[in-house]
């Protein structure tokens, strides 16, 4: 689904990502760990194509197509969707209207979706205007559910969210990625998920979101270097016990090789 090769990214003259190689196969959810300032959000913004993130080496391939120089909207229409951590307020634009913009093929029942996300009362508020942390997340997820991207990039989906909301948000992510677990069901679970094609990259520095969603793999970004790729829970266990110190050691080993 997504392939990143030898990616180097410079922001304001400073190297933020160094030789990042990553692959997210179809249907898989990967967790991207890393302390604050390690370059996680920059990687996401680069994948989406935001200005200010200059790719000086390497390339990004999505669905077999080199998208490194593609405009943002074309990437979106090709099937990449982002949940931002701090999206801007757009005065006078109702949240309902942006959800309709996301819903390119007009197939979404906005009211129904909003109900699921406990968002009905906010549909006619200006996008992100005075939204709480949890409201921002729900608004972002509502937009993604209307967009139905094949690759979902989620930036810190659990940050600034109260405990009650996080369950709702976890459910929404699972349903977006077709990874929900619901029992009893008329059809066998394996049949329901057999058509699963959605991939995701979930950014987290605490890893709390792993209590609510399932993942196929974890990766660690430290100081602009992707220094680890293995089972997500295993990584989380390390980080919970020892912090990112072990990652420092690994990234120091990799550094001279770049």
């Amino acid at each position: 689904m997504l392939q990143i090769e030898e990616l180097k990214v410079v922001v304001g003259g400073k190297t933020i990502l160094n030789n990042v190689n990553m692959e997210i196969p179809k249907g898989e959810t990967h967790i991207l760990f890393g302390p604050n300032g390690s370059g996680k959000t920059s990687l996401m913004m680069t994948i989406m194509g935001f200005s200010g993130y200059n790719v000086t080496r390497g390339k990004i391939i999505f669905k077999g197509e080199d998208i490194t120089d593609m405009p943002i909207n074309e990437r979106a229409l090709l099937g990449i969707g982002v949940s931002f951590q701090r999206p801007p307020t757009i005065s006078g634009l109702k949240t309902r209207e942006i959800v309709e913009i996301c819903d390119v093929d007009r197939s979404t029942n906005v009211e129904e979706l909003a109900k699921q996300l406990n968002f009905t009362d906010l549909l006619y508020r200006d996008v992100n205007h005075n939204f709480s942390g949890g409201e921002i997340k729900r608004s972002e997820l509502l937009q993604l559910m209307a967009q139905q991207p094949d690759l979902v990039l989620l930036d810190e989906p659990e940050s600034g969210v109260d405990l009650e909301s996080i369950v709702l948000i976890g459910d929404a992510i699972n349903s977006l990625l077709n990874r929900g677990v619901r029992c009893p069901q008329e059809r066998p679970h394996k049949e329901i998920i057999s058509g699963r094609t959605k991939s995701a990259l979930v950014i987290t520095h605490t890893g709390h979101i792993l209590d609510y969603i399932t993942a196929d793999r974890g990766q660690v970004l430290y100081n602009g270097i992707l220094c680890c790729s293995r089972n997500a829970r295993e990584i989380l266990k390390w980080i919970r016990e020892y912090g990112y110190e072990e990652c420092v050691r690994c990234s120091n080993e990799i550094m001279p090789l770049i």
Partner: protein
Amino acid sequence: MLKRDNAFDINLEDYKVDAKDHAYVEKLSQIESTDAKQLLDVGVDIDENARTGTFIQKDKSVIHCKTRQDGVEVMSISQAQEKHEWLSDYMWKNISPDTDKFTFQAREIPHEGYFIRALPGVKTKHPVQSCLYIAKEGFSQNVHNIAIAEEDSELHIITGCATAPHMVTGLHVGISEFYVKKGAKLVFTMIHDWGEKVNVRPRTVAQVEEGGVIISNYISLRPVGSLQMFPTTHLNGKGAVARFQSILVASRGSFLDVGSRIVLNAPGTRAEIISRGIASGGSIIARGDLVGKVAGIKAHLECKGLILNDGLMQAIPELTAHVPGVEMSHEAAVGKIDQHEIEYLMARGLDEDGAISTIVRGFLNVDIEGLPASLKKKLDRAVSETQKDMM
């Protein structure tokens, strides 16, 4: 592009002060079709659906005027002077004819204007519509308007101003005096669509008594030569409220110097001024002046401006407090469209132009109280069209 200090001076001698009389029409449907189209664009409903009354003046002639609700008076100012002897207590009470040459001319060479009044306790079911229209090339239309919302009444007025399609230059001078009595409410929406070289000088003062509410919406999206106005509202009685909103677009060649002053003279009064301006080749000076005279008042001013392509956008918010214990604030922002907002919308699938026009539409989309649904739709359409012209 015109700067604040060199707003061109208007030479009154360049304008004709007389025009031929236009015949009165009994039915709005008899209005000439070219005129009718212009009227429609500024909110006049020819079918008078959902309108309580109508007043239409073309050049110096009142060509139609009627009321459709008991207790609501709609007539020309000269008729009103004949009918109500007391009207002299209301005319020129707030604005001195000596204020400037425009007010002076309005007294020396008056050309009618409207008188709209809701009797005590009467609430208009629908807005009264009024239109001041200039058809004669180079005409200086000098009108004097009075609106009175008597005690506990509720009066909605939609007034549109426009010019004939062929017209190039003209001058509109409008003296308006508004009275909102105890417990009354006046909602006043003004839509302007003047010609590209028409100069407009409204002079407006409103007096609001205890518990009274005045809501004023001003919309000018189409090109205008120059427009300069600074209406003043006095909140004189306890708990009176004023809310002023303006939506302005200045395209190339347009100069808009628009603001409002609200003086809070009584405890518990509240005032809000909201202004949105887009300079797209033209100039906007957006003023706002809140004056707190007693303790226990609350006032807020919000002024946002965008420059698309080029233009001048100057926000001048002023707060004056004469005593301690007032709560006054302002928020002003001038700039270009935030790149983050554009890219955010692009990440949802819009191309860059689509993202910019969506943001501009949102920017101009201020919720306007008391606007009939059909007019709201028309306004949305006008915003879309204006926004297309700007791109």
